[in-house]
């Protein structure tokens, strides 16, 4: 189907929706639908695409299922006094799908939960590649020995097989993680002691195996309801075959004090010692952090001031000392109510790099930003009928030694309008504007590679009557980039409209019809363009 035809159909659907909406606006409000209490439900769906253009790009993000598929199911385990479990799936006959299950059960004071998922997906490459996949298996067991102290065991396995555009090599890797942790109230405080083990294996043998294991202990002493002091210690080793063992030790001290009902002071001191003999170039052998903040409430407003200092002791590849760059950050936040209906929040932070690091390279000028500043102003509020928000942000990154100045200005404005008791409208607009300068004066410079972007989102939710509801959702984006090398994926736009009608039967069964006309454009690489009208019919049954 051509894109033009798809959009004309969409226009007809929208027109039909508006007519229905106007007709029902004067009707009396519906009574809430009574849904019987049932523990299990399942959704079956049928989907079809009417696609013209690049299937590769269309399917790059969790592509829609096609044909008949299980959209979701929820199952209870009453015999185990369990919490609800869930399985879901999307057309396992396709090469691109997601399927998984999760659940939790309770046996007395032992709680067990699991999560398994399998995702297969495409990469948006011009050359057809085998599908990549990610499989996750998580298991968690937690036993409450007393109401305040538990011992838990967590296990996780992630399997990833990815295929990329050449020259990037494919990945086939396994990451296994487990930990055993005892934690809870001990004396007048909180104790947490745990052991962790993480193992990484690359089946393609491009990367060496990595084992990270170690333990950590933490004790929080609550001296009074107003004062808490916490100390934590951790020690980890990082091992790779035929390489020296790396050790990381961290000690931290944190304290929190409420000098009054409306004031809070907290502080953190942290020291990390890094012994990394496996690294052959410049590294860090010690990091130190000191942070303190004061929060105070007054007359409906809250003010926060926080100061942070970070230090990193750098060494060369031959383990000789280089220097200690120091980052000092000041943050402030002020928030409170403006009258009955509005809330204002201001956030600002500034970071300065003292003792900038000397580069161990031909050009010894620092490569790091020496100043970072950000400000954000947010105003939100309104009435139960109309509410909105406006967020304006400004971020600036400077590296004086290389005359780098990068600026991001962002704006988000959104509103929610309750049109009637049965209909509501949501609208949002977001804009990011990047500019940059550096010592690179010739074209193309850094500024030519930074993209501005805008995103518009609209949503309409309308309960036509006590059984029928209708939803419309539109997401529209555009990115603008000078794209001096005329590469694909640099200048794109997309419009994704989804409309759905749902009818619910008295017993709680429901059927839905969804139409999604989507359009995607790449202004440089037209071969990546596509138009589609996804049709989805689904039914949910409750048992």
């Amino acid at each position, binding site marked *: 189907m051509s894109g033009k035809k798809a959009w004309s159909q969409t226009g007809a659907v929208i027109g039909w929706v508006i007519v229905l909406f106007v007709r029902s606006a004067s009707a009396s409000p519906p009574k809430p639908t009574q849904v019987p209490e049932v523990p299990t439900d399942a959704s079956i769906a049928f989907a079809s695409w009417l696609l013209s253009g690049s299937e590769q790009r269309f399917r790059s993000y969790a592509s829609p299922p096609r044909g008949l598929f299980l959209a979701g199911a929820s199952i209870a385990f009453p015999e185990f006094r369990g919490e609800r479990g869930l399985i879901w799936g999307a057309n396992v006959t396709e090469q691109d799908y997601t399927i998984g299950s999760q659940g939790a059960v309770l046996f007395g004071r032992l709680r067990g939960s699991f999560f398994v998922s399998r995702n297969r997906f495409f990469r948006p490459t011009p050359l057809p590649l085998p599908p990549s996949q990610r499989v996750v298996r998580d298991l968690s067991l937690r036993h409450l020995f007393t109401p305040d102290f538990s011992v838990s065991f967590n296990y996780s396995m992630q399997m990833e097989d990815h295929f990329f555009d050449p020259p990037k090599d494919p990945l086939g890797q396994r990451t296994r993680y487990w930990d055993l942790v005892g934690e809870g109230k001990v004396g007048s405080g909180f104790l947490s002691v745990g052991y962790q083990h993480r193992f990484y294996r690359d089946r393609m043998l491009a990367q060496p195996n990595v084992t990270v294991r170690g333990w950590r202990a933490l004790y929080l002493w609550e001296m009074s309801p107003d004062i808490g002091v916490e100390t934590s210690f951790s020690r980890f080793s*990082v091992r790779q075959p035929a390489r020296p063992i790396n050790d990381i030790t961290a000690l931290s001290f944190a304290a929190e004090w409420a000098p009054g009902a409306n004031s809070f002071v907290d502080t953190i001191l942290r020291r990390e010692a890094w012994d990394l003999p496996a690294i052959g170039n410049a590294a860090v052998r010690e990091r130190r952090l000191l942070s303190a903040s004061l929060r105070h409430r007054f007359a409906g407003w809250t003010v926060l001031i926080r100061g942070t200092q970070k230090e990193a002791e750098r060494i060369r590849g031959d383990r000789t000392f280089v220097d200690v760059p120091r980052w000092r950050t000041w943050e402030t936040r002020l928030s409170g109510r403006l009258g009955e209906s509005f809330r204002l929040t201001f956030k600002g932070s500034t970071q300065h790099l003292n003792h900038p690091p000397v580069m161990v390279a031909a050009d010894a000028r620092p490569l790091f930003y020496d100043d970072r500043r950000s400000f954000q102003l947010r105003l939100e509020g309104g009435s139960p009928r109309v509410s909105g928000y406006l967020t304006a942000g400004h971020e600036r990154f400077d590296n004086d030694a290389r005359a780098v100045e990068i600026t991001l200005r962002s704006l988000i404005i959104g509103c929610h309008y309750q049109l009637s008791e049965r209909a509501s409208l949501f609208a949002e607009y977001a804009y990011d504007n990047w500019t940059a300068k550096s010592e690179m004066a010739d074209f193309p410079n850094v500024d030519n590679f*930074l993209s501005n972007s805008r995103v518009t989102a609209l949503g309409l939710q309308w309960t036509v009557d006590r059984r029928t509801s209708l939803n419309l959702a539109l997401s529209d984006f555009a990115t603008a980039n000078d794209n001096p090398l005329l590469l694909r994926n640099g200048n794109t736009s997309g419009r994704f409209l989804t409309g759905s009608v749902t009818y619910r039967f008295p017993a709680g069964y429901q059927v839905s019809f969804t139409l999604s006309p989507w359009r995607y454009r790449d202004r440089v690489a037209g071969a990546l363009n596509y138009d589609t009208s996804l049709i989805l019919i689904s039914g949910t049954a409750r048992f």
Partner: protein
Amino acid sequence: MAWRVSALVLGLGFCAVTVLSGRERKEPPFPLNLFAKAKKEDYIGEKECARCHKPYFASYERSPHALYMRDTKAPLDRQGCEGCHGPGEIHLEEVEDATKVVRYRKSKPEEIARACLRCHGDTMRLAQWHRTDHAKSDVSCTSCHQIHPSLEEQRVGKAPLPGSAPWVAERVPIAGLLTSDQVRLCGGCHQRAVNQMRLPFHHPVLQGRMVCTDCHDVHPSKSGRKKAHPFKSTCLTCHAEKTGPFVFEHDPVAGWSGEGCTECHQPHGAPHPSLVKAFSRGLCNQCHTDKGNAHFPGWTCWQAGCHVAVHGSNSDPFLRTP
């Protein structure tokens, strides 16, 4: 040296504060005072509560809380409605008095945290909650979690979020008693993050393949530890091939200086592939200004087939081979 002096000053300061605060023992703050002063006979049982609060009782019965709060071996102050709302007899002394019952919709975030953490102490303690960014923004437990879940919403879900995949079943998650699915819940305040996910390259959250807590640790929970990598950034939980340590590390990737992965990547979504902040060669030129047009005028530094191991190399100091 400066670090040691700071540690000493802070340690001495807190010792002084401890000594001073120990002089005067105050009554526990609200709502802990309700539980502290309650006698055994002040706990009247959940059936008494149900007489007046029938709809809330019905939703409580459906919630996982009921499984735990009906444990008759638990202390009385952790059973039934009174385990959260305080002893019923004290409430009945003056039902309109807000200081005699815990009303979560009207309480301050601090008070809500105190009440919830009475039982959820193995998740975190109050002092730890105070240090979270959410606490500092007056976001309380009930801003995200609901104790009386809406069965209707759990079954039917909500209208599709703009940009989300229509074939993804949008349901209120079964775990955590969250008030909504995570994108809506977190996106209520973090709108910029959600809008970045609507850009052409993004983590597949709106497609239902990830949730916010896959990366973000809202409180120090068990799953949080899995994500807290002792060596490098949280991103390595999934992108484990970047773990290293490499013989030749790329400084921003290692996180020696700067912000680690987010120095180059915009994790929620970006206008460019690989979620990088700047397109193509512009990304590297933000820092490596001396490697401008004269160094290589063509394609992207890594796609050109030169610096293919930008995250670190075990064989080449210029990151040209893995």
